[in-house]
């Protein structure tokens, strides 16, 4: 059956209709002409071959392990994250999202196991987006952990010299 999806990708939103008819998939982007799509799981794991009106693309598609309705795609070495919902799902998710606090403190977690070499902010500091918070050593290199957004340092949960595992909370921004 045909369904229309809202696809959000890199801040832009696209309306895509997918029709799973007897002659194969047909896809329409916005009000452009419909295109024939041939979609095939070419190779495990999750490597698909897409022929879109003959244009051949190989794309790896996996569901985001942390966000529902979100797909991670890689395509000729470029990576995309796409959020896909039908109109109806969007309305439902907005209703349920309305019940939750829209923003709040942000916990910055260790992106990899490593050794904390230095914490370069203090509780109460105001930081800009991208400003470095601490240095984490892994694979013999020091890696800067930056603030994903501007804010105030509410808590620091590790100290220099500590070894941390992936996902360990490092700093909480208010």
């Amino acid at each position: 059956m045909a369904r229309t999806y809202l696809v959000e990708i890199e801040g832009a939103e696209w309306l895509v209709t997918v029709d799973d008819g007897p002659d194969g998939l047909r896809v329409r982007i916005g009000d452009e002409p419909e295109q024939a799509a041939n979609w095939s799981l070419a190779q495990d794991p999750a490597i698909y071959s897409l022929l879109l009106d003959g244009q051949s693309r190989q794309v790896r598609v996996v569901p985001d392990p942390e966000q529902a309705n979100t797909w991670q795609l890689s395509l000729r070495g470029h990576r995309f994250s796409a959020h896909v919902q039908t109109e109806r799902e969007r309305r439902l998710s907005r209703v349920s999202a309305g019940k939750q606090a829209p923003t709040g403190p942000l916990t910055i977690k260790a992106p990899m196991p490593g050794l904390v070499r230095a914490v370069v902010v203090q509780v109460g500091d105001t930081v800009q987006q991208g400003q470095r918070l601490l240095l984490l050593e892994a694979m013999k290199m020091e890696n800067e952990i930056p603030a994903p957004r501007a804010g105030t340092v509410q808590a620091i949960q590790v100290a220099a010299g500590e070894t941390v595992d992936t996902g360990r909370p490092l700093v909480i921004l208010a």
Partner: protein
Amino acid sequence: MPIRKLLIANRGEIALRIIRACRDLGIGSVAVYSAADRNALHVRYADEAYPIGPPPAPESYLRSAAILDVAHRAGADAIHPGYGFLSERAEFAEACRAAGLIFVGPPPEAIRLMGDKVAARRLAIAHDVPVVPGTEAEVQDATAAARIASEIGYPVLLKAAAGGGGKGMRVVRAPGELQDAIRAASGEATAAFGYGGVYIEKYLERVRHIEIQLLADSHGHCIHLGERECSIQRRHQKLIEESPSPVLDPATRAQMGAVAVRAALAAGYVNAGTIEFLFTPERQFYFLEMNTRLQVEHPVTELVTGLDLVQEQIRIANGEPLRLTQDQVRFHGHAIECRITAEDPDHNFMPSIGRIPAIAEPSGPGVRVDSAIYPGAEVSIYYDPMVAKLICWGEDRDQAIRRMRRALSEYGLAGILTNIPYQQAVLASPEFQAADFDTGFVERFGHPAAHTDPQDRAALQRIAVVAAAIAAHLDREQAAAQSAASHAVEGPAEGREWRQGGRPRSLRM
């Protein structure tokens, strides 16, 4: 007596590279492995393999006593150290000698001399090899360092007295940054080489990194195999290397080669080695340091000379004289290497660790892959993020670049992020294609996305939009079919188990 069984004191692609040379020469190969590497290709492809400890390198690949013990038990008569790990530790070469083993590399005296950057500078100066202005001694304290830096003039470069490869290096542009930089450089040097001494040099702007590959036998002969241009570096880690350098003319090549040969002979050097030079916009060259081991980027020299450097190393270690005179060295075409690292170029090259469930390696004309990845391999935090080397040959630089871009586009490594999109952006840039770069290229280049053709990017985005919509659609169709089937046959339980959080398990990794 020639080597009959060689122990490889290393891991990853270089261990595999050396095992291949052993097989080509009919020599037995002995691998050593940490607990993280039990299933690694170097273990599976060697004739013999023995465990040497837990994953962290200081507890395994850096344990020279354990490695010598394996050599003894396995009856190896020689050890190849590869690059990194024990390759530039004079004490290890000495310990091999003391144990009656051939060390496939230079004598410990030469390692020690050229590994001490300060002594190496003195040797260079004594033999009329041009050097960068700077200290001849390690910095003793912060005050002395500040004084020296002011004398030379900022920017200055801090360098580890032991080791190389960019570890323990820092550029300092203003006096206020000096103290932090010394701490960081010294700390990195201690971690990497077990010794934290650093020294100071003038930091030359807009220089190229050009190095000369040498082969010296134990009979006093030394030849060079031309140069490699390694200016595309990030934090002093090389990313792209090529041979020949697009800027060297035959006369300068001959001059740099002769200087490098002179320095190596003065140091009593034997086996394969590399002398690194800085090459200024004014076409002056300065001795930077000598790497007393096989380089990561040796394949580009192999592709343009047709020589197998590891085989030559083993012949030299056997005491054979060089098979070629300088005049017999011939160069054909152009070769480029891209180092493939498990790093996320979109997020400041943060290491990316994880399991690699599937690989598609490039192939075809002009393509060589030196890699030790296999389906199911784990990229761990314990070792270098370089997971493979892609080397392309072309009859000229243009063809080599085109083949490299094609090969990079074919390279698929699922499960981890890699620097491949970054390498693609560099290769696509007019600066790289015109060979208009220096060692500051990467710092200036910025985010790869800024260099992608917006039309190309938009076209890719459209494909991603369609692919995501199709994946979501088929997911829902499959879920509906599954749910209907499970209701019909055995109630909703199986359907619930199969679908978790709105996604079919079949799509998970």
